[in-house]
C-alpha cells in the first residue's frame, strides 16, 4: 500500500513534535511537513498535496477553519485541539474527527484506524463551508444543484442550502465536481440526480429527483444529449 502523506499544522513546536512522536508508530504514514500557521500550511498543501492533515483550530492569523474554507480539494482532516468545545459546537456536520490535547494513545489509535480505512477506500470528495456561523462538511455527491449568487455559489443538498465562496466557473474546473453539468450561466446540476428530460421550444427541461426543474438552452441541450448517449 502506498504511503500516506501527512501534514502537521500547529502553532506550537512542542505540540507538533508530540504529534510526530505519536505518528512514529504508524510506518504507513509519512510526515511530509509541519506548518506553524494557516498561510504556511496552505502553501504546503498546494505544493505537497498531503492525504491527511493534523490541524489545530486556534492559531495566530487565520484559524484552522479558515484554512479548510480556502481549500478547493479537501484532504482527510483530524482536528487536534486543547479545548475548543465552542468551536466544535459550530459543526453542523461532525464528519471530521477531532482529538483533544494531550492525546491518549488509545484515542489516537482509534482515529488512525478510521483514517487508514477511509484512505484505503476511494475517498468521497467533500467541501468545507462556513455559512451563518456554522461549519458544514458536505460530500459533493449529495449536492443536487448549484446556483450562482453574486460572488457565491449556493449549494442545494437535501432540504438545506449553504453559500460557498466560489464561482461556478471555478467549480466546473474542480475535478471534485465532475458529476455536475453546467445548465446555464447561473446553474449547474448533479447528473446523478436526473429523473427525466423533456424537449421544448427553448431547448430542454431537466427534472431532478428532488422536483427541481432546470431549463437548458438549445446549445446546452445538445451537449447534454451527447453526454447521455456517449
Amino acid at each position, binding site marked *: 500500500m502506498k504511503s500516506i502523506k501527512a501534514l502537521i499544522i500547529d*502553532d*506550537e*513546536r*512542542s*505540540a507538533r*513534535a*508530540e504529534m510526530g*512522536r505519536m505518528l512514529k508508530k504508524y510506518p504507513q504514514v509519512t510526515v511530509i511537513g509541519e506548518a*506553524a*500557521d494557516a498561510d504556511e500550511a496552505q502553501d504546503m498543501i498546494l505544493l505537497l498535496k498531503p492525504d491527511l492533515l493534523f490541524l489545530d483550530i*486556534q492559531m*495566530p*492569523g487565520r484559524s484552522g477553519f479558515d484554512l479548510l474554507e480556502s481549500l478547493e480539494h479537501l484532504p482527510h482532516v483530524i482536528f487536534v485541539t*486543547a*479545548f*475548543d468545545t465552542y468551536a466544535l459546537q459550530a459543526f453542523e456536520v461532525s464528519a471530521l474527527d477531532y482529538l*483533544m*490535547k*494531550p492525546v491518549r494513545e488509545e484515542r489516537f489509535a482509534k482515529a488512525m484506524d478510521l483514517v487508514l480505512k477511509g484512505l484505503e477506500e476511494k475517498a468521497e470528495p467533500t467541501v468545507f463551508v462556513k455559512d451563518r456561523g456554522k461549519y458544514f462538511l458536505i460530500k459533493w455527491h449529495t449536492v443536487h444543484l448549484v446556483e450562482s449568487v453574486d460572488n457565491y455559489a449556493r449549494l442545494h443538498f437535501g432540504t438545506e442550502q449553504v453559500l460557498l465562496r466560489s464561482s461556478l466557473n471555478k467549480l466546473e474546473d474542480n475535478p471534485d465536481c465532475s458529476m455536475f453539468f453546467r445548465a446555464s450561466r447561473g446553474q449547474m446540476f448533479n447528473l446523478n440526480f436526473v429523473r427525466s428530460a423533456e424537449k421544448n421550444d427553448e431547448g430542454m427541461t431537466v427534472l431532478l429527483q428532488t422536483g427541481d426543474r432546470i431549463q437548458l438552452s438549445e446549445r446546452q441541450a445538445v451537449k447534454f444529449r451527447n453526454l447521455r448517449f456517449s
Partner: protein
Amino acid sequence: MRKDPNISRYWKCQLAGWTIASLYWTFTGALYGGFQLGLGLAQLISDVLLYVLITHLYRNFALSNKWQDLALDRLVPRLVIAIPVMAVIYTLVTVLKLYGIKALFPHPGHQSLELFFRLNGLNIFMAGIRLMAIWLLAYHLYHYARREIRIAGEKSKLELSFKEAQLNNLSAQLNPHFLFNALNTIKSLIYTQPDAAGRGVDLLSELLRSGLYKGNTMLVPLEEEIAIAKDYLELESLRLEERLSYEFDIEENIPQVSVPRLSVQTLVENAVKHGIVHEKSGGKVSVSVSFRDDLLVIRVLNPGTLTLTEEGSGIGLQNLKERLLIRYKGKATFNLCQNDKQVCAEIKIPVI
C-alpha cells in the same frame, strides 16, 4: 420628598403616631370630664403640630451630628442626656399649649400660668420623659437596624464577590485551554527535554497551589503576587518558546504592600491570551511596578490591538475591576488603553 421612601415613611410614622397619641388623650379626657368637639379638635391639631415640630427639630439636630451612624455604645450616653432635654422642651411647649387652649375655651376658675405650671408641670414632665424616650429609641433603633442590615449586605457582597473571584480564578487558572496546552507541552518535553518537563511540572504545581488552595486570603504581599505572575509567564514560555518574552521592572522605592490576590496574574494572563498568541512572531510582555503619590501603579504592556469585544468579555478583568472597587471603595482604578500597537493594562492602588 416623595422620591425618598425613607422620608415619606418617617412622615407617615410622625403623623400617625402623634395622631393616635392625641386621640388617646382626648378619649381618656372624655371618660373623666365630658367631651367638647371644638376643644377636642384644638387639642388634636395643636398636639400633632407641636410635637411633630419639636421631634422633627430633634431629628434634624441628630442628623446633622451624624448620630444615626454612631455605634450603640456611643449613642446611648447621648440619648441619656437627649431624653430629659427633650422632656423639658416637651414640658414647656405642653404647658404653654394647654394654658393657651384653656384661655381660648373659657373655663370656670382662672389660674395664673405660674400656678398652672406648678400644679401640672411635674406630671407633664414625667409624661414627656416617657414619650420622648419612646420616640427617640424608636427613631434610633430603626436606623441602627437599617445600618446593620446595610453593613451586613455590603459585607456579604464583598464575600460573594471574592468567592466568585476565587471560582473565576479557578476556571482561569484551570482555564482549560491553558491547562491542557500546558500538560501537552510537558508531555512533549518529557521525550525531548526531560529537565524542562520537570520544570514545567513544578511551575504548574505552584500555580495550581496558589490558585486553588490558598484559602480565603484576599490580599497577598506584592512580592508573592509578582512571583505567581513570573511562574505563569515562565510556564507559557515553555509552550510558546521564542514567541513569548517578558520583563519585570520593579522600582526600588516600593513600600511593603499587599495587593488583591491574582491581580497581577490576571493582567499577564490576559496579555498572553489576547495579545501574544494572536501574533505570529509573538512579542514581549512588560510588567512595571512603581510608586507615585501614595499610589501603587502596576502596568502590563503587550503587543496587540484592543478590540471592543475583548474589553467587554474578559471575565477575569471584569472580576478584577469589581474586586478593586469593593476593596478600595472606588479609590483604586483600572485602565485599559491602546497606543501604537501596544495594549496597556494598568491598576492603581492606594497605599494607606
